[in-house]
C-alpha cells in the first residue's frame, strides 16, 4: 500500500512537471509558466486539498532527488566546453560574483535585521544565496537555524528562477556571460537550471557562479556578521 502511494506521488510529480514544461515550451518560454514555481504550487495545492502532509510526501521526494547530485556534477561538461572564455574572463567573473554575493548577503540580512527579526532568523537568511549544503554549513557556524536556512535557499532559488530572466532583460542585460553569472550568483542551482534553458554558455557561467558564490559567501560571512553587529 505504501509503495503504491509512493509510486502515485512520483507519477503525479512527473506528470505535473511534464505538463507545466509542455505549457512553458508551448507558450514560447513565458515566465508565467515558471516550471519549478508553478509545478510546486500545483502539487502543494493538491496535497493540501487531500490532507497529505509534507512528511508523507518526503519519501517520494527522497527517491526523486537521488539523481540530483550526479545531475549537478554534469555541469562540469559545459564548464569544460567554455574553459577558454573562463580563462579570458577570470578576473571579471571573480569580481562580479564576489560583488553579487556580498550585496546579496548584506541586503538580505540588513532588511531582516531592520524588520526586527530574531538573530537566528537573520543568520539563516544571510546565507540564502548559496546551495543548501553550503548554507547549512555556514549558517550553523553563526547561530542560524539550518532547516530554516534551507527553506530560505529554496525560496530564493524559486523566486530568482521565477523573475530572473525577465528582470535581467528589463535592466538591459543581453550578454550571455552576464545573464548566466547573475542567475547563478543569486539563485544557485535553480538559477543555473533556468540559465541552462536559455543556452549552454549561460548555463556554464551560472554553474561557475554558483560554485564561486558558495566559496565567497563562506569567506565573507565573518566580516558581514561583524558589520551587522555594529549596525544593530
Amino acid at each position, binding site marked *: 500500500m505504501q509503495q503504491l502511494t509512493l509510486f502515485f506521488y512520483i507519477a503525479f*510529480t*512527473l506528470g505535473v*512537471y511534464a505538463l507545466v514544461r509542455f505549457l512553458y515550451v508551448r507558450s514560447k518560454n513565458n515566465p508565467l509558466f515558471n*516550471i519549478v514555481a508553478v*509545478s*510546486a504550487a500545483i502539487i*502543494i495545492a493538491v496535497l493540501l486539498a487531500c490532507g497529505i502532509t*509534507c512528511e508523507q510526501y518526503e519519501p517520494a*521526494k527522497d527517491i526523486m532527488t537521488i*539523481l540530483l*547530485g*550526479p*545531475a*549537478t*556534477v*554534469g*555541469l*562540469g*561538461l559545459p*564548464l569544460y566546453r567554455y574553459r577558454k572564455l573562463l580563462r*579570458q574572463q577570470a578576473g*571579471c*567573473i571573480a*569580481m*562580479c*560574483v564576489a*560583488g553579487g*554575493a556580498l550585496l546579496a*548577503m548584506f*541586503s*538580505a*540580512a540588513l*532588511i531582516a535585521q531592520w*524588520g*526586527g*527579526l530574531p538573530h537566528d*532568523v537573520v543568520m539563516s*537568511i544571510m546565507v540564502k544565496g548559496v546551495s*543548501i549544503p553550503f548554507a547549512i554549513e555556514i549558517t550553523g557556524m553563526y547561530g542560524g537555524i539550518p532547516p*530554516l536556512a534551507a*527553506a530560505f535557499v529554496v*525560496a*530564493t*532559488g524559486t*523566486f*530568482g528562477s521565477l523573475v*530572473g530572466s525577465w*528582470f*535581467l532583460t528589463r535592466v538591459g*542585460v543581453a*550578454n550571455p556571460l*552576464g545573464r548566466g553569472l*547573475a*542567475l547563478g550568483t*543569486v539563485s544557485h542551482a535553480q538559477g543555473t537550471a533556468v540559465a*541552462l534553458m536559455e543556452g*549552454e554558455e549561460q*548555463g556554464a557561467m551560472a554553474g561557475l557562479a554558483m*560554485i564561486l558564490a*558558495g566559496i565567497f559567501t563562506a569567506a565573507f560571512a565573518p566580516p558581514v556578521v561583524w558589520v551587522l553587529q555594529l549596525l544593530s
Partner: protein
Amino acid sequence: MHLVRTGHTACAICHIPSTGTTTVNKFIRILWQTALLFAIYQGSLWVVRVTGIPVPANVLGILVLFCLLLSGVIKEHHVNEAATFFLKHLVFFFVPVAVALMNWGEVFYQYGWVLLAAIVVSALLPLALVGRLAQYLQKRKDRCSN
C-alpha cells in the same frame, strides 16, 4: 538546448558504436554515462565525509569532472549524452524540493512582509549588479583587445 550533439564516435567505455543511433543504444549509453556521473558524485561525497572539508559534494563533483575532462582522463563523449539529458531536466529536481516549502508556511506567514522584502530585494539588486557589471567589463575588455 545547444548541448545536443549527435556524436558519431564510438563510446570507449561501453564499446557501443553510436553510428547506429537507435533509441536502445542511446538509452544504454545514457545509463552508462549516468553510472559514471553517479560514481564521481559518490566519490566526492566520500572525500567530503572523510576529510571534513567544508565544501558540498556536488560542488566538488563538478570540479572533479572538470579536472578529469581537462586532463583527458574522461573524454567529452563519455558523459555527453547523460549530462545533456540531466542538465536539460535539472529544473525537475527542484519541484519536489520546493514542495517542502509548504512546511515553512507559518514562519513566512509570521514574518511575512519583512521576509518577502528581504528575499525580493536581495535577489533583484545582485541580479542587476552582476548582470550589468559583467556586461560592462566584457564589453570594455573586448574593445581593448580589438
